């Protein structure tokens, strides 16, 4: 209901700033920055701040991969999809050449095989049921949505289950990562990446024109794409790898499971060097956890700075069930598919890695099924 339709609201204006949550989110960020600086980790402080900025930008620009893909599938509306491609093109401008030329930096790569395809497909179903992907879950949960807190909890649980299943899926075969810069050099790889994005954009435009709908992204989408693209480059500079979201969830879940007596250290996934180190070390030593936490606090601050925070009533039970099922599927799918829209699609394509496009092509039919399932949970197809 709009303010204009309720004169009584103008008589007693609601507070625009929600001080308790605004202060809490900023204070939380400051405390975490102080803790990592005490440990001599300026890069960790940078990742927290960049995550905070990402959370605020995502919330203010209402940048949503889930909704934009749904608009493309249901109505043929390509504006959000084109915004996503612009974001990737900006990030690729730095990631492809730097990952190839500068020692210590690396792109987001992943093997191509059944694990990637099954994981991305299941993730696609989950993101439509949950109504948010990895980044979407973070910024909406941080922005005051109780429904998305449930999605986040089940996302975390699903990703731990996925970590236990991933090695078996990898044994089913696959091929090593295919990186454009390995074939065409750093700048040729960037040109190939931009060319692949141009082809995807032309397909999106063709679909929209055929359905007679808009292809012009709104200023909000363009602003979001440019700002998030530049922040992706900054995260890459601070973390030496493209921005990723879901590995942090897996680590949080594994640490919670360990707290309740589960011993994951013998599981194959947790014996690989990276996960083993992450399970033993502080959460604030893991790059994806740092940006994840910053994003939650950033979205919370942005939401609390503009309206009363978390005042919406709880949604119906069916919607909460969709949030839980969607979260579980996304968690499991993200672990098998080597990430979400951010780590696998954006990170992969912006690195010139073929797995990013394979992930997209596998997630898209999953989204179609997820959209068909939404009415079962009382959610609209649009």
């Amino acid at each position, binding site marked *: 209901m709009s303010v204009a339709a309720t004169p009584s609201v103008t008589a007693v204006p609601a507070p625009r700033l929600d001080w308790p949550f605004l202060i809490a989110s900023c204070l939380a960020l400051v405390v975490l920055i102080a803790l990592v600086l005490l*440990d001599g980790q300026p890069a960790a402080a940078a990742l927290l701040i960049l995550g905070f900025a990402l959370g605020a930008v995502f919330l203010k620009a209402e940048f949503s991969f889930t909704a934009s893909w749904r608009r493309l599938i249901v109505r043929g509306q390509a504006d959000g999809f084109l915004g996503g491609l612009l974001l990737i093109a900006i990030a690729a401008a730095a990631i492809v050449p730097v990952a190839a030329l500068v020692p210590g930096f690396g792109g987001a790569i992943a093997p191509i095989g059944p694990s990637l395809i099954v994981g991305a497909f299941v993730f696609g179903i989950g993101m439509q049921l949950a109504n948010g992907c990895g980044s979407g879950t973070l910024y909406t949960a941080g922005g005051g949505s109780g429904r998305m807190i449930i999605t986040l909890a089940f996302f975390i649980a699903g990703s731990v289950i996925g970590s236990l299943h991933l090695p078996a899926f990898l044994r089913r075969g696959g091929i090593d990562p295919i990186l454009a810069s390995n074939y065409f050099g750093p700048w040729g790889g960037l040109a190939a990446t931009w060319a692949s994005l141009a082809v995807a954009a032309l397909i999106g435009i063709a679909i929209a024109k055929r359905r007679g709908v808009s292809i012009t992204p709104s200023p909000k989408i363009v602003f979001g794409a440019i700002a998030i693209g530049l922040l992706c480059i900054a995260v890459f500079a601070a973390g030496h790898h493209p921005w990723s979201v879901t*590995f942090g969830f897996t680590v949080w879940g594994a640490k919670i499971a360990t707290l309740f007596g589960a011993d994951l250290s013998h599981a194959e996934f947790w014996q690989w060097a990276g996960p083993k180190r992450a399970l033993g070390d502080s959460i604030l030593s893991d790059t994806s956890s740092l940006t994840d936490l910053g994003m939650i606090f950033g979205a919370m601050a942005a939401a609390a700075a503009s309206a009363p925070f978390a005042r919406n009533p709880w949604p119906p039970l069916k919607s909460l069930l969709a949030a839980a099922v969607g979260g579980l599927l996304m968690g499991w799918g993200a672990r098998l598919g080597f990430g979400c829209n951010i780590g696998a699609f954006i990170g992969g394509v912006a690195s010139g890695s073929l797995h990013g496009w394979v992930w997209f092509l596998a997630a898209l039919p999953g989204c179609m099924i997820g959209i068909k399932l939404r009415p079962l949970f009382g959610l609209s197809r649009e």
Partner: protein
Amino acid sequence: MRLVYAIVFVIAFTALVAEHLTSPSGGRPVSPEDFVGACAPCGAPCPSVQKK
């Protein structure tokens, strides 16, 4: 919802700080991709290595 949100926030943040203070940390933050043999953002090995 506001109260539930506040409780979740306080519990999660307290657990996070406690976990940090009781776990090893220091040096540069790392990603699983930083480790030798990592072939994916989660640190999974490459298929060509697994076959050996």
